[in-house]
């Protein structure tokens, strides 16, 4: 396992469970170690799921010393840089034998497009098979080394990945009696003069819904 990169990702939330970010090339060896090591014995992968991180613009503030009109001053400089998006797979590991856990393992893909690949951990935890298929189906993450990588929930002909944040669902909105939030936006798009837009007085006269 020489050259393996394992990064500890802290978690600021009240739960505060940190996770381990593992590089793809050594993921399988690290997983084997986590399962076999007598003091760890993480023999149970209880949950495998995916996370979609979109392309983001990150702002970083730096204090720079500059000489302005002969006086040295500290000026705050904001630099913006693009952070490319990626997909992430999260494994929750427990030990049935030693009764400890969870240990959270993360794998990252290089990008969200042509290289959305991670190493499959199904050879180590057989229970991950269907859950990795689900992550493949809904996020489009390809698991290399998976024994049977097919869609599991959607049909084979389906081309989209519904759990990705940029997924565009079919435009099949229908009348909704009490729309709110994003459903209200859909209502206004499909029925521009729907009952919501009618002033209360004229609504009281009777907006009629017919089907």
């Amino acid at each position: 396992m020489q050259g393996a990169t394992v990064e500890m990702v802290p978690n600021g939330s009240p739960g505060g469970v940190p996770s381990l970010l593992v590089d793809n090339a050594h993921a399988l060896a690290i997983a084997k170690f986590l399962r076999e090591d007598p003091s760890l014995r993480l023999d149970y992968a209880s949950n495998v799921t995916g996370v979609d991180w979109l392309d983001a613009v990150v702002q970083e503030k730096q204090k720079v010393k500059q000489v302005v009109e002969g006086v040295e001053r500290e000026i705050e400089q904001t630099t913006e840089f693009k952070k490319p998006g990626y997909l992430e797979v999260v494994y929750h590991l427990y030990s049935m034998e030693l009764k400890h856990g969870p240990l959270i393992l993360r794998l990252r893909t290089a990008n969200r497009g042509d290289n959305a690949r991670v190493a499959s951990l199904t050879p180590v935890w057989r229970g991950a098979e269907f859950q990795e298929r689900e992550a493949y189906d809904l996020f489009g993450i390809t698991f290399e080394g998976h024994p049977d990588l097919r869609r599991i929930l959607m049909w084979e002909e389906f081309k989209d990945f519904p759990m990705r944040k940029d997924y565009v669902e079919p435009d099949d909105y229908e009348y909704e009696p009490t729309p709110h939030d994003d459903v209200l936006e859909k209502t206004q798009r499909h029925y521009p003069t729907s009952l919501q837009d009618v002033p209360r007085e004229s609504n009281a006269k009777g907006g009629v819904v017919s089907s």
Partner: protein
Amino acid sequence: MDEGLRSELSKQGIFTTTLEDLYNWGRKNSIWPLGFGLACCAIEMIAASMARYDLARFGAEVFRPSPRQADLMIVAGTVTKKMAPQVVRLYNQMPEPKYVIAMGACAISGGPFKQGYNVLKGIDRYIPVDVHIPGCPPRPEALIHAFMTLQRKIDEQSLTGAKRPRHLVAEAPSEFPVPEFGEHDLEPPNNPAVWQPPTLVRAE
């Protein structure tokens, strides 16, 4: 037949009826449902058929494992888009006369999953539904009420004339197109001959 004469004859011990009444009486008291369930509504359907609610009182206790022997399809539960073609195919395989009860919020409209990407917004998009039951899930009493509504509907069907039921009209369809799996959605997303999207009309 004159109602007075009929009543007079029955006092003499002579009972008269029409072929239509007899035929519908037989049909409405032996509706055999197709035994399949899709989600939690199926549990209520099973409960309705067991001793406490006793669907056998309506002659409907024989849940048939084959669509060829069934008269009624109870769509009990969430119809996902992946399941919808199979449901339509089962309906097509049932012989006429056949009836459909859409049971529960999901089967009639998509229910809590209506705004999702993977659930059909009601089975009436593809097959004609006779009775809709709201509820999540509906209690067995609601299913029994739907049964009685269907019985009333069958009882009122006239066998001749322009209003005769579909199975007596030679050119009326008995099979409905099975939707195909598309790249983004089912194709077609609904059967326009059976269902049209709702339109809003404002009264001026």
